[in-house]
């Protein structure tokens, strides 16, 4: 049991992250102060939330490229609601964000489920449609900090036990989805659908419906992140989180989630996101030009996928070994 834990992908990644933090700390000791690490985690929270959703989608052999656009559209809608009706309580805003995000995710899911269009095509299309819709509803105008109410902006910053709600949201999501993915029928069906869709049908699992729910969950998390993002950075505009979908996929890949489906865990998504978050935050701190960041995260993705492939490699049938044993 212990051996399995140590050799797991998650443990390896955890180790790499610790080494990385250690290396940064040599150059810049303040990096490992609790407050700074908490800050890094807080910054990484949106990535964590989206990576969890993306992980579930990838588990079912799909991919969701529309998450960043979904985030931008939800963010703009809630920001505009806040401007138009400043009295609406934050709870309602959050509910609207999750609901709207889920709706957009469900639309992706429906196209994949009912029309059987490949997920990459569906989300490539909805990605541009959602992003464009942000422009259409806002007329390209920004919603700026001074137009938002204090309550709207306060939620992600509100500190509980020394940590902002932004971080707590990510932590709660990690816990909830850990339980969902390990202990519920729906969660296990995602693994089954991605691992062997054919067998899943025989086990009474509707493949399309599972994929639909995966997209809906991913959308809901993107919607939630949309509100958090817009309120934290106190601005909503068309290009919010532009290109972020690839960071999210990258986090999943680094976290050991197999693009072929069926393999992955919430812990992996969490660590993959943290890995990217640490790199992003550490570079400016150790005085490496931010221009290096892109190349470093690119290399990390390639190395991660190479390592994963190595550990998953089919070693072929071992026929001889048993023969040797009996001799």
């Amino acid at each position, binding site marked *: 049991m212990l051996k399995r834990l140590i050799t797991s992908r998650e443990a390896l990644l955890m180790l790499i992250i610790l080494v990385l933090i250690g290396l940064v700390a040599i150059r810049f000791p303040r990096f490992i102060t609790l407050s700074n690490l908490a800050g890094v985690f807080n910054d990484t929270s949106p990535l964590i939330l989206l990576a969890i959703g993306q992980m579930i989608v990838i588990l079912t052999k799909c991919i969701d490229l529309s998450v960043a656009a979904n985030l931008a559209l939800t963010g703009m809608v809630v920001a505009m609601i806040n401007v138009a009706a400043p009295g609406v309580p934050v709870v309602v805003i959050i509910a609207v964000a999750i609901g709207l995000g889920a709706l957009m995710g469900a639309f992706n899911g429906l196209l994949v489920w009912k029309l059987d*269009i490949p997920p990459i095509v569906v989300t*490539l299309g909805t990605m541009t449609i959602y992003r464009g*819709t942000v422009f259409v509803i806002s007329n390209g105008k920004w919603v700026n900090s001074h137009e938002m109410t204090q309550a709207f902006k306060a939620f992600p910053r509100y500190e509980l036990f020394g940590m902002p709600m932004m971080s707590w949201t990510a932590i709660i999501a990690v816990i909830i989805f850990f339980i969902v993915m390990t202990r519920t029928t729906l969660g296990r069906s995602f693994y089954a659908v991605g691992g062997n869709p054919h067998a899943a049908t025989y086990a009474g699992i509707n493949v399309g419906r599972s994929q639909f729910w995966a997209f809906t969950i991913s959308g809901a998390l993107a919607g939630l992140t949309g509100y958090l993002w817009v309120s934290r950075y106190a601005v909503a505009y068309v290009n919010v989180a532009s290109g972020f979908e*690839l960071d999210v996929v*990258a986090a999943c890949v680094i976290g050991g989630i197999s*693009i072929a489906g069926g393999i992955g865990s919430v812990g992996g998504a969490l660590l993959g996101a943290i890995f990217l978050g640490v790199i992003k935050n550490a570079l400016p701190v150790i005085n490496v030009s931010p221009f290096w960041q892109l*190349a470093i*995260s*690119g290399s990390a993705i390639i190395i991660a996928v*190479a390592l994963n492939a190595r550990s998953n490699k089919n070693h072929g049938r071992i026929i001889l070994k048993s023969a040797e044993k009996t001799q």
Partner: protein
Amino acid sequence: MKTTERIIPDRLQSPIQRYLKSWETLLLAVAVAIFIANSFASPYFLNAWNLSDATFNFTEKAMIAFAMALLIISGEIDLSVASMIALASTAMGAAVQAGFGTPVLILVGLGTGVICGAFNGILVTRMGLPSIVVTIGTMSLFRGISYIVLGDQAYRGYPSDFTFFGQGYIWWVISFEFVLFLIIAIIYGIILHKTNFGRAVFAIGNNPTGALFSGIRVQRVKFILFLLTGFMSGIAAICLTSRLGSTRPSIAFGWELEIITMVVLGGVNILGGSGSIPGVVIAAFVMGLVTFGLGLLNVPGIVMSIVIGALLIGVIAMPRIWKMTRTN
């Protein structure tokens, strides 16, 4: 096995019948419709110079789209194409700084593309990694190297004869780029539809194991396809750099998705196995016409992208919905 002589006909449907029912015909109808709609919507549309200018919106992307079409038909994908443009352009910029002339620049641009393509190809075919993930990685890596080299700087000062590739005209309104686009389209059409190599691409895309078991050198074919994609990115980098006259690391940002959209809109199955070059050519025109037509009405680019996105989903969904309602 001595049974009565049975003759199996070669075909039941003539090729013409097949064309009429094809995706390309549907797409061509869409293109014609957009063309007509555009000429009514804007008085500036039917002007030779304007239409010539409009081609620049898609020619460079389409050049890569042809190689990408082959790659996608073979069951792989390359998301790093735009980053290869950036890196190739950066390399050319560096060559300019080193005082080299146009012939060397072209070699550098093409060479960089080929090397990048080979890098992708090795990772995918030798190490057996999934191409979508590998190229998400190299997409960051290649552009990342450009950023490391250039940072906040730009390379400029390209020699004046270099400007021909992106700004030159062969005859009247016919630009060099457009002619190059047509030539490349024909070459790729022949490669895919008329050669053994193209047949192997289709076989691999339909069933890589079956192709391997039929004696096709699957990994070699895929490697060549990655090389070709890199090579085409090099050509596109030359044209784009020549057209812009400068290199920044952010050059061609986000093009990969537009190129893939073009390929998919052209009827290439994203899961591999089927597609055609004429389809991609028409898709390139459709996207170019939509962008240009809406541009004339001063519609912002992002709204055009809604149209493209809806078109992408719509043209794929429509036949399926139609089929569904018919069977019910």
